[in-house]
């Protein structure tokens, strides 16, 4: 079963001596603003995000008493379901050492840093094109780097606009053939790519790309990375925790955690190199012929 952001933050919490919520509901709740009664109110405070089991959801605590908490529930939950979460309660609510939003932000940053460095996850996206939309298009929303583009199963050549300029300075006014034959990403804004020639008809392009993670995450989100890299997320988050200007600052552990994170990047990169899973490195390898049909 896939690990979640909360699992990684829980691991961080134990290293930081921050308690975690691990209790159950003693009575059912229905959807709406409700008062819930957990078996223990330890480490639950106003503003804490909690994971409620059953029809799993994350709720934000709006009020607390010695034995209950209030929150807006989207789902109904039976008695006995889990109530959990790395809430980082020390110093809450007036002078916290860490906040959940802060830790969630660190996780999103670390996951993206790893994805940018290693690029272990790839996907394809459909990007429509048309005459009216011109020559330059936005790359898919979660694309880190475009690796190839094909239209109706035909691979487009990856070129540069500089190369095109040298071949023919009037290439931008070309209209034949009516579908793009090549694509480029230089001399356009970041996050965009261009076609040559400008599309004269409407169609869809299959964009093959590496994937980045979201800029904000929730406790119940699964990792974009395979779980085998999960503990390096922990070290990346801890490096940021120990680096911040606060009571928990610890340059020695910050340096150690950062080095563990970098080592994870190196190992992942080496592994992907070894199994030839890293797209985009192929151009550096010697081409060998394959038997093809057709």
């Amino acid at each position, binding site marked *: 079963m896939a690990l979640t952001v909360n699992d990684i933050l829980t691991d961080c919490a134990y290293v930081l001596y921050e308690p975690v919520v691990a209790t159950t509901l003693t009575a059912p709740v229905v959807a709406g603003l409700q008062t819930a009664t957990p078996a223990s109110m330890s480490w639950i405070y106003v503003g804490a995000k909690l994971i409620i089991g059953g029809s799993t959801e994350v709720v934000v605590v709006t009020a607390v008493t010695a034995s209950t908490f209030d929150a807006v529930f989207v789902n109904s939950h039976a008695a006995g379901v889990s109530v959990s979460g790395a809430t980082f309660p020390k110093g809450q609510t007036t002078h916290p050492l860490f906040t959940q939003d802060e830790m969630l932000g660190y996780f999103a940053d670390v996951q993206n840093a790893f994805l940018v460095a290693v690029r*272990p996850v790839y996907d394809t996206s459909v990007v429509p094109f048309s005459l009216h939309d011109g020559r330059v298009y936005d790359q898919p929303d979660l694309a880190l780097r475009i690796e190839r583009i094909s239209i109706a*199963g*035909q*691979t487009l050549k990856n070129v540069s606009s500089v190369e095109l300029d040298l071949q023919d300075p009037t290439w931008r006014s070309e209209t034949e053939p009516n579908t793009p034959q090549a694509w480029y990403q230089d001399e356009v804004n970041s996050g965009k790519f261009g076609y040559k020639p400008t599309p004269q008809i409407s169609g869809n392009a299959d964009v093959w790309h590496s994937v980045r993670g979201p800029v904000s995450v929730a406790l119940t989100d699964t990792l974009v990375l395979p779980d085998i890299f999960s503990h390096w997320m922990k070290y990346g988050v801890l490096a940021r925790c120990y680096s911040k200007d606060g009571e928990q600052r610890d340059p020695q552990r910050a340096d150690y955690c950062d080095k563990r994170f970098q080592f994870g990047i190196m190992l992942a990169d080496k592994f992907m190199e070894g*199994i*030839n899973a890293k797209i985009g490195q192929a151009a550096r390898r010697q081409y*060998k012929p*394959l038997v*093809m049909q057709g």
Partner: protein
Amino acid sequence: MSTIADIEGRVLDRLEEDRLTPKFWSVQNEIRPFIVEAMNEAVLITGNPEIRRNAATTLAINTNLFSLPAGAIAIVTMEGPGALSIRKCSMWDLDMKKSTWEQDTGVVPKYWFPYGLTKFGIYPQLTQAVQVVLTTVDIPVTAARPYTGLESIPFTEEFDEGFEEYGAHAARVKEGGVEMAQSMKEYGRFLDSMGEMSKFEIRKESLRFSRTAGLPAQVSPVEIK
């Protein structure tokens, strides 16, 4: 084959904790995840465990791309119908050879290629569903947390001491300071141990992490020199 429970007690010994009632570390929430961390690092260093999956994977029609089976991070081999060997290539190789390769169809796959660590592709697209048997490098523990200790360690016993060393070191990060610094030796021994285990692969299967079809056989670069 060991289980996590076989190792966790020895990790506690190294931390001077009572095996039955540890005071400073939680077995369920700290020690066991540390042992799983050790296994995850071991996978990337040694390329083990390789599992020939009992259940066949069905390749659907009209698509070139598929998700890896749950728990796998890399395909080592693919066997088609009648134990037909389907060779590995790369997407770049396909593009170089034929720019319209995505349009080709066939009744059995001729080649497969990795697409990151979560997907793989085949050439050509299939006109009928085909079942293939995959040998994969797997994530060592996929059980949901909290770990019970009964989770099997899919490595041979030679790896166990390395996992103990790692677990003890990872636990001492919480202590910080001199305690953590002194535990670096344990992490160093873990890495040395995994490095030694990766060298076994030279004799066992030097082509296990082969690149694409047609490239000359060579010592896999994943072994730590």
